[in-house]
């Protein structure tokens, strides 16, 4: 066990190796490039495979092949690259393949820029690719949490035979914080379904085509049962100073960190404000949020987007409380003092102007 100073992107790589991941297929894109840089060296040390693909589309399909062949595999990208990977993600969900996909989000739409953003929330949590499928989406807020969630992501991917996404942003990818790197006892489950060559057994098939609608519906219904189980078993969140809160801030990832600073300053003024930070964005902590919100008079959602997670917050509260919004777009960060100003407005009984 050692405390090290690591960049978020590198920490994802180290955590993946700790979790037994030995295959990485990627394509360069800022601001996640330190992750492939790390993996090419680290996987060589542990006898793994690093391959820079010709495109994000190819990288995710290499993951499909490797996952189908029974390996723990990861790919990473940033927003525009994830758009390209969606084809493969849908196929992997359809063929029930485990993999960890990292999105270090940047400003969009289109080429946008390389600054941190949270505007891929819909893409990550509401499908993105075609068809009825869900990914477990985990949103760390510190480098240590990046390590912990990445390790969990591999376990969950194998447990449910489903892709799991780590959703970070440019700040989390680029920043350095101390992390604890420890030896991990990894038990990769047997994968009797994998295509390893049909030696002494019936052939295995990795597939998402069901040409007749009836079996395709059956397949989908079975997937839905799995997705509901995933939703029941994986709700994660953090509460911060919510015990006596009258105002509730909801934010995740980098926004949540900055919001905590604003909450501390508001508390110094005597404003009773707290934060719920969803850690799992899918499944979203609907019930917990509804419960906490019962005691508050106002809710403020802070995002680095035009307002995406706010839709889930509204679903959770189901009209019971007014939900206000403060967001920055296109790679801009919310500033502590700006969030504080919005909290102050709500404390005076006003509305945040979002």
């Amino acid at each position, binding site marked *: 066990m050692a405390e090290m100073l690591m960049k978020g992107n590198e920490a994802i790589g180290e955590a993946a190796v700790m979790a037994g991941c030995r295959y990485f297929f990627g394509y360069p894109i800022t601001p996640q490039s330190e992750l492939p840089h790390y993996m090419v060296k680290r996987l060589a040390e542990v006898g793994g495979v690093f391959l820079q693909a010709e495109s994000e589309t*190819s990288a995710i399909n290499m993951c499909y092949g490797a996952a189908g062949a029974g390996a723990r595999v990861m790919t990473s990208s940033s927003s525009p690259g994830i758009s390209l990977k969606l084809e493969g993600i849908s196929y992997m969900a359809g063929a029930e393949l485990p993999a960890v996909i990292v999105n270090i989000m940047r400003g969009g739409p289109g080429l946008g820029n390389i600054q941190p953003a949270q505007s891929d929330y819909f893409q990550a949590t509401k499908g993105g690719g075609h068809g009825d499928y869900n990914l477990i989406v985990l949103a760390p807020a510190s480098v240590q949490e990046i390590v912990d969630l990445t390790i969990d992501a591999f376990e969950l991917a194998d447990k449910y035979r489903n892709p799991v996404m780590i959703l970070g942003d440019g700040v989390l990818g680029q920043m350095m914080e101390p992390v604890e790197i420890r030896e991990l006892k990894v038990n990769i489950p047997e994968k009797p379904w994998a295509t390893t*060559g049909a030696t002494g057994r019936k052939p295995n098939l990795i597939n998402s085509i069901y040409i007749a609608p009836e079996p395709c519906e059956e397949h989908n219904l079975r997937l839905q049962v799995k997705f509901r189980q995933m939703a029941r078993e994986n709700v994660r969140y953090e509460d911060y100073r919510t015990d006596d809160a009258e105002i509730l801030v909801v934010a995740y990832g980098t926004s949540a960190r900055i919001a905590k600073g604003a909450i501390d300053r508001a508390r110094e003024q005597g404003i009773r404000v707290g934060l719920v930070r969803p850690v799992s964005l899918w499944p979203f902590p609907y019930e917990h949020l509804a419960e906490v919100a019962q005691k508050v008079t106002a809710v403020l959602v802070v995002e680095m987007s035009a307002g995406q997670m706010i839709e889930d917050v509204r679903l959770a509260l189901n009209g019971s409380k007014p939900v206000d919004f403060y967001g920055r777009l296109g790679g801009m960060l919310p500033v502590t003092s700006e969030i504080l100003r919005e909290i102050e407005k709500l404390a005076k009984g006003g509305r945040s102007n979002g």
Partner: protein
Amino acid sequence: MVKVFERPKSLTGKPFHYCPGCTHGIIHRLVAETIDELGIRETTIGVGPVGCSVFIFEYMNLDFQQASHGRAPAVATGVKRVHPGKTVFTYQGDGDLAAIGTAEIVHAAARGERITVIFVNNAIYGMTGGQLAPTTLVGMETTTSPVGRNQETQGSPVRVSEMLSTLDGAGYIARVSVHDPKHIIQAKKAIRKAFANQMSGVGFSLVEVLSTCPTNWGLHPIEATKWLADNLIPYYPLGEFKVPPAPAKAEREVE
């Protein structure tokens, strides 16, 4: 009584769904016979395409992965990197390989990825309804070139084998045809080389198989084989475009 002919063990026996006169069935069989002869059925993983042969996994009695359109070489790369000692092949049509999957096939070849590719070229999209393919000949009528492929606006057909053979990573590239028994025998030899090369560690191997599509060509099956010989072969000459510098070791062993 001595059995002199039987179904290869690498075929499941499920009747092919292909149209009358389509040569996919012949090519499936050649691949299956090769896998049987090399004794690698239990250590081979196939990757299927999108297109008419999307259900190849139902006919081949071995492990299979079904890939999205054009991505089979990337999927095969993933499989091969996890199981470098196993045999991995893709089976792809011309829309899959030469249009949407151009990047994947070019870079799998450039990397010298140790996979075998069976590329079935019938110069048309079959399953989606007879559209213009990258390999459709100039003047050929398709549902998206109803008055014939216009070179001016739709360009010229792509010669995949010639193109890929320029890459250093390509170990074995051949073009064959299955329009008559003589050519079928030649095709089998090339397919066998392509698999044996993989086993002996030669880089990327690809066999382009000229094939018929009577349905979408609008021809009787017999006319289709003749049309192939008269029209496809002149534009897509048969032969080996790239061979390994020395005979592959595994091939010597099996002969």
